[in-house]
């Protein structure tokens, strides 16, 4: 599973990346929505963990963009602001789930894995459908 973390706080990105690597998960980081899309274009990433509140392109805009360009990528929204509106907006735009800051590393991994499994199931279905053709 390849993860990408998108947040404007670099220290958050570096610490979480270190934690993930310690847990044996390969993670890419991006400090803005634009950078995240750039990186998505260049490498295969399965799950994106996306902060809602960012300068420039905010979380929801980035989400819409990602889903448009890479519909297969699973996106988990990360917010300091667990409001119904944000959650509903995110989920409507195609987010898989949402997380509330501060979140423990184990919870984060669990959610990411759930998303990854979902993606794998979806890919499986696509493969099956294509094989039947």
């Amino acid at each position, binding site marked *: 599973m390849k993860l990408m973390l998108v947040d404007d*706080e670099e220290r958050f990105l570096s610490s979480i990346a270190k934690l993930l690597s310690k847990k044996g998960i390969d993670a890419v980081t991006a400090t803005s929505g634009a950078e995240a899309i750039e990186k998505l274009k260049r490498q295969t990433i399965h799950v994106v963990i996306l902060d809602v509140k960012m300068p420039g392109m905010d979380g929801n805009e980035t989400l819409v963009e990602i889903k448009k360009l890479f519909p297969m990528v699973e996106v988990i929204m990360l*917010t*300091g602001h667990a409001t119904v509106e944000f959650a509903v907006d995110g989920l409507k735009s195609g987010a898989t789930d949402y997380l509330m800051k501060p979140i423990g590393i184990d919870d984060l991994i669990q959610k990411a894995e759930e998303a990854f499994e979902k993606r794998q199931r979806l890919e499986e279905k696509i493969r099956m459908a294509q094989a039947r053709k």
Partner: protein
Amino acid sequence: MKKNHYQTMRKTILASMILVPIIPFLLVLAIGYYYFTTSLESSTITRMKRIVEDHGQMIESFLAERKADLDFIIHSYRYEDLIQPGKLAEIFEHLQKNANAFVDLGIFNQDGVHVAYHGPFKLTGKVYKEVDWFQKVLKQGYYTSDIFLGYRQIPHFIIAVAKEVDGKKWVIRATIDSFMFNNLVKRVRIGKTGEAYILNADGILQTERRSGGNLMTKPPDNIKYPEENSGIESFINTDAKGEKYLFTTAWLKDKKWLLVVRQEKADVFQTLRAAAYLIILIMIIGGTGIIGVAFFLCERIVRRMEEMDSEKESLGDQLIRASRLAELGEMAAGFAHEINNPLQIMKNEQSLIEMNLAELKENGQLKPSESLAEMEDSLDQIELQISRCADITQGILKFGRQTEYVLQDIDLRNLVPEVIALVEKKAAVHGIRLKQTLSEDTPLIHGDPSQLQQVLLNLFNNAIDAVVERHGSHGGEMEIESGPVDNLKVKILVKDNGCGISLQNSNKIFTPFFTTKPVGKGTGLGLSVCYGIIDNLGGTINVSSEKGHGTTFTIILPAAG
């Protein structure tokens, strides 16, 4: 100052409410009284005058008829015939058939000798030559006397007519039945005291007066005689006893007699007095009514205004508090959000340290030691404090923005016992007596059960804490009540006999982070979250408390449907 304001308002309203109706009311009464009085007075006086006029005419015509009787005799019979014995008696009989007005009849020759007489007295042969009336009748040809005593020594008056035949004058005289004449005059009877009588030019009574005053006496009241040529006069005069009378007078008999009709003023204007009493009565009753109604209405208006003002004030307070809390909610939510980001990093860093430490220990690079144990304890503590911070920010976010909730009809009669069950044990441990009074007609409310549970639980826990603080583990009481308020609202009361809240604190208890509990024991968010929930459901939550006696929380929620 506020009180003063109401006092001034009360006075103004009262003054206008009394003066505005009472001025026209009194004016109407006064004008009515004035016109009624004048019209009654003038009509009374007119009536009196008419009575006097009629009566005067009747008396005059009576006298004229009697004179005509004598004229008829003197012109129909010759002197020689009349003095024949028995002739006069025959004529007298004849006259009396016509009008029973004469007492006697007599014939006099030029020398005043009473030559023939018919009547009850023995007057034949008496000589009247020097007598006043005889002189006058010879001179004027006709004479009516005042009342006098004469030979017979009885009050009477006479009518005499003279005739001249061949240079010789003779006279016929009749005495008027003074009893009959008296009755004729006295017949007038007006009200209780109205009476009529005749005075001669010297003010001597010519007829009896019903209220006292004999013939030929002078009544003590001084009547002012009207002008010689005046008609019927009316005036008020006071008699010797000080009684006021309305006098009406008319001249009779060529202004030699004065017909007087008098009536006590009080008697004349009796209806007037009755009207005056009635008006005074109406004035008293009406005035009292106006003043009473004014006082009553004024009191009601002012009280209603006071109520409205205080309602407005408390509404204003609530609005201010609500808007302040809303602002605070926004701010707190933003603040919580901002805190969550660094909190996230701290959490990450703490996990990293922990992991690295574990690795070092595993690799044997770190030997177990007291300082290592202390470091691990510190890390645990950091983790704990971070999660505490997270709890706080969660709480703030809950207060500021409501998370997802499910609205449904809730029956408080089921919900309250459920929540009570959650705190029953805790209450029992602290010796608190729980009492539930859930009215059978408590309406359903529309809301999220878990939120309402949260509110009640919060209030119950606060109540228990307050009771424990005051009573320890004995004598605590907590009561919960529910019931309808005017069909559209539901009231929930949570009462305790705990330590109470001071006035200055009770204004702040719904403010986020306000707590009186020791550090670490409470976040100061419980009641602000309750407030947010109740506000969200369109209800209100209020507190009334007395320091040292207890606290009552009142929740008002709209009824479902």
